[in-house]
Structures are given as structure tokens and as C-alpha cells.
């Protein structure tokens, strides 16, 4: 199984080689999407965790045992209408038509409900009007 999760660390936890143990002891494939640690050494880690159901369960149990709080990732695409010049390039890459073009007015619109956060739009926007946001709580 494969999931994107946000892991929240406290100071003591951030000093442990958690990722190393997840890979070594639980045979999990880990893709770090984002990470941040503040000056108090609290922080979060956004990872994609992949492995057999057993190792996935054992791996997450191991993190729980360390007191790491885990939550499913909720990401957001933000379309900044002020920066957008309405060229419409993004709409040809968006697989779900969340970014869409009205063919009469040729104007671009964004429907957050249709967005699957694939990130295709991020690279093709020449004004960098589209941003990817991870919804991350304050560090624990």
C-alpha cells in the first residue's frame, strides 16, 4: 500500500533516525516530499510511504510508539488570480479540468473541488500564479 502522510515531530523525536529505521527495519519505500524543522527542533515531514500492508502497519506502529503524530496529507493548489495573465496554458495540462477555459471568453477559472493536486499546472504557468500548499499544522 501507498499513502501520503504528514508526520509531526517533537524535539526529542527529531533527533532520532526515524526514516533510516523505517527503511532498514520495515522495508518501506519512502519519498520525502517536504520537511521543516524550526529552531526548537520541532517540525514536520511530508512523506509518501509505500510497502506491503504488514510492513506499512508495523512501520506506522513504530512511529506511533515514538510519539510521532501522523495524519493523512491534505494538499491544496492555490490559483492566484492577480498574477494570472489568462493565457490558459495550464488548462491544457490539467487532467480533471479543474483549471478550465471558457471557450467563448477564453477566460481561465479554477474549481478546487475538481483538483486532484497532481501538480502538472505548477511547471507550465509562466507567471508562477499557481502554488502548491501543504496544509500543515503548527509543530507539536
Amino acid at each position, binding site marked *: 500500500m501507498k499513502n501520503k502522510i504528514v508526520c509531526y515531530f517533537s524535539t526529542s523525536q527529531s533527533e532520532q533516525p526515524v526514516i533510516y529505521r523505517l527503511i532498514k527495519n520495515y522495508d518501506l519505500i519512502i519519498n520525502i516530499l517536504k520537511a521543516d524543522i524550526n529552531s526548537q527542533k520541532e517540525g514536520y515531514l511530508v512523506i509518501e510511504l509505500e510497502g506491503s500492508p504488514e510492513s506499512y502497519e508495523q512501520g506506522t506502529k513504530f512511529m506511533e510508539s515514538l510519539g510521532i503524530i501522523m495524519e493523512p496529507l491534505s494538499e491544496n493548489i492555490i490559483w492566484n488570480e492577480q498574477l494570472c*495573465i*489568462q*493565457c*490558459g*496554458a495550464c*488548462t*491544457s*495540462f490539467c487532467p480533471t479540468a479543474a483549471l478550465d*477555459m471558457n*471557450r467563448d*471568453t*477564453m*477566460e481561465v477559472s479554477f474549481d478546487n473541488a475538481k483538483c486532484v493536486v497532481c501538480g502538472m499546472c505548477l*511547471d*507550465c504557468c*509562466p*507567471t*508562477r500564479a499557481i502554488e502548491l500548499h501543504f496544509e500543515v499544522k503548527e509543530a507539536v
Partner: protein
Amino acid sequence: MAVKKTYEEINEKIRKGEAVVVTAEEVIGIVEEKGYEKAAQEIDVVTTGTFGPMCSSGAFINFGHSNPRIKMKKVWLNGVEAYSGIAAVDAYIGAAQLPDYDPENKVFPGRFTYGGGHVIHDLVAGKQVRLEATGYGTDCYPNKKVDTIITLDDVNDAFLFNPRNAYQNYNCAINMGERTLYTYMGILKPRIGNASYSTSGQLSPLFNDPYYRTIGVGTRIFLGGGIGYVAWHGTQHHPNVLRGDNGVPKVTAATLSLIGDLKGMDPNWLVGLSYIGYGATMAVGVGIPIPILDEEMLRYTAVKDEDIYCPIVDYNEGYPYSKPMELGFANFKELKSGKIKINGNNVVTTPQSSYPRARQIAETLKQWIKNGSFELTQPVAAIPSAESDIVFKSIPERTPNGLSFANGRARR
């Protein structure tokens, strides 16, 4: 009786607030309703517009002097180098210039988040910009270093001078290769995964005056939200190409060199762009008014998207290696619909030029003329048209060694 109007007659109507001004979109409906002759009698001016990436753009700036004075040998604005091989405190900042520290395509594809176009946008937006300059020191210009903060208000002169803008037609880019391409036409997906185009079609200035009867040296225009002028024909101007029955070129043709006071412009119409894997550039807003001198001009301005074609070009091998390939033409109305047919398959189209913004420019220019603040100018010289014999050249391949080039160094 055949319609004939002079620039002076049209300007007189503008001064009186009586001129009939419509956009290049609106004229199409009027012609359908009233016919060419009646429409030509009624309409005085048709306004056009385009807003898209135009790399061949930049600005001349005179910074004024430091004390002691400096002859700038190198100049940077927010880390982006401006060319300073002209007088002491003059420089030219090019839209496609990158900061010295930019990683470029070392990690492919590069992001190119900031460049000369962004500097120009920031200046026009009134933002503070870091000015760094170095010189070698002379008796008349002893200073060797300047490092300060400036705004557009602080400089003596700043004018946009774009060597090539408003391309009359442009390629429809596809990728016939097996990997994703990162180009100035945006991302091109492999195996003809999309078709990228960049023109405002029926609103585009040079599609509405295909033989440049009214657009020439000295034509007053909308440039970057302010007033500009056509300075010359642009670089790579190549008007003697294949044209349709309506006179509209079917391949890249005319270009314009444009000039205008940066201090009168608006940051909404000069926007820095970042093309992943390619570089930085700037979207420039251009609008040109077309006087309806006679019915012929009216017919030109009534051109519709469905009558405009652009060549399909492969950016895997065809364009980068100048490999001749006959891939046919794409129709602009179909491009705007979101998909075109290539080899019987539906291909998604990717626009690079903003149609809503082009429409807004034509509308703005229309309002300027209607309220009497913008009069038309008759060109002082024509730019070369379809009957010219311009040959499109490439860099010659010659061996430099074996020939004794003085390179200027032998001069005493």
C-alpha cells in the same frame, strides 16, 4: 460612392468626439450585419491587441551620475546584467537576461524565476531595485563602484525599445519525439501530446493590416499600458512569404520594433515570465489602431479566426535542427476551440498568448480614442511589405583560422 477618408479627417472626428471606433472582434459582427461598404462608411478606426511573451524586448535607462562620476563597464539591476557598452551611465536591460547566479539548466529543467523582464516589471510597478555598477576609473569618471537602491522615479530616462514584437503569425509547436520538451513555446508533451500556439488571431495587430498599409514608422500605439510608437520594422522581418487569398501570411512574417516611455507604462501590461527549461522573458501588451481609410482597410480588419492559419512545426527535430518537414497548417479557430486534428488524432492545444488580455487592450485603446486622448498618426515611412525581396539568412559556417583577422587589436 467609394469610401475615402484621410488621417486628418479621422483625427478631426476624434477631436470632436464623433469618431466611430470598434475593436477587431466587434467589426466582424458589424460587417456581417451591414456589409463591407456600409461598415466602411460608418467605422473610422478598428483597434487591435495582443499580449504574449516577446523575448526581443528591453529598456534603455539613464541612471544619472554618481558623485564622483562613473563610466559603467558592468551594470546589474537586481542581479540581472544590463548592457553598458554605451555612454557612461546608460544601459540596456534585456527581457531575456538572467542573473549571473541563475543555475540555468544545470538541474534540468531550470526554473528561471527571475530575469530582465521581471526587472522591467518591478521598475514599472514602482518597486525598489538594486543597482550595482563597476567601472575601471578614468580622469573624467574616477568612481569605480556603485551599489545602491533606485526606483523608476530616480532615473533620468527609461524607455522601452523592443527590437522584435507583435510577430505577424507564429508557429504551432508540437513534439514528435519520445521525451517531454521544455521550450519557449512551453511544455511540449511527447508523441504530439499537445500543440502550442501564440497569437491573438483576429485581434492581432498585423493580421488586421496584412500588407502594412497603415502600420509603419511613426505609428502611435498602445505599448505596455502607455503610449508607444513603431520605430522600425522588427528584426527577422520577412514579409515576402506564403499568404492566403485574404493576404494574411500563413507562416511567420512581419515584425515590429517598438519604442515608448517606460515611465508612462503599467505593470499589468509588462509582466515577467518564467518558461521552465527555457528561460525568462516578458509578456508585452501591444495595441495598434487601424484607420479605415477605405473599404479595402475595412475588409482587412474584418479578418476572422477561421481565415487565419499557422504552420505546424516539430520542436523535437524540425525547429532546433532546421529540418524541413511539411506538417501542414493549423486553423486559428480550431486552435482556440481547445483541440486540433493532426494525422487524424485529436490534439489538445496550449495557448501562450492571452486572448482575454488582448481583448482588453483593444477595448482600452478604443476608449482612449473615443475620449479624444489618443489621435492617429500617419506613418512617416512604410515598412517593407510583400513585394520586397528579403532573404532570411543563417550564420555562415566558416573556419576562422588561416585568415588573419586584425580583430581591432592591431590598431595603433
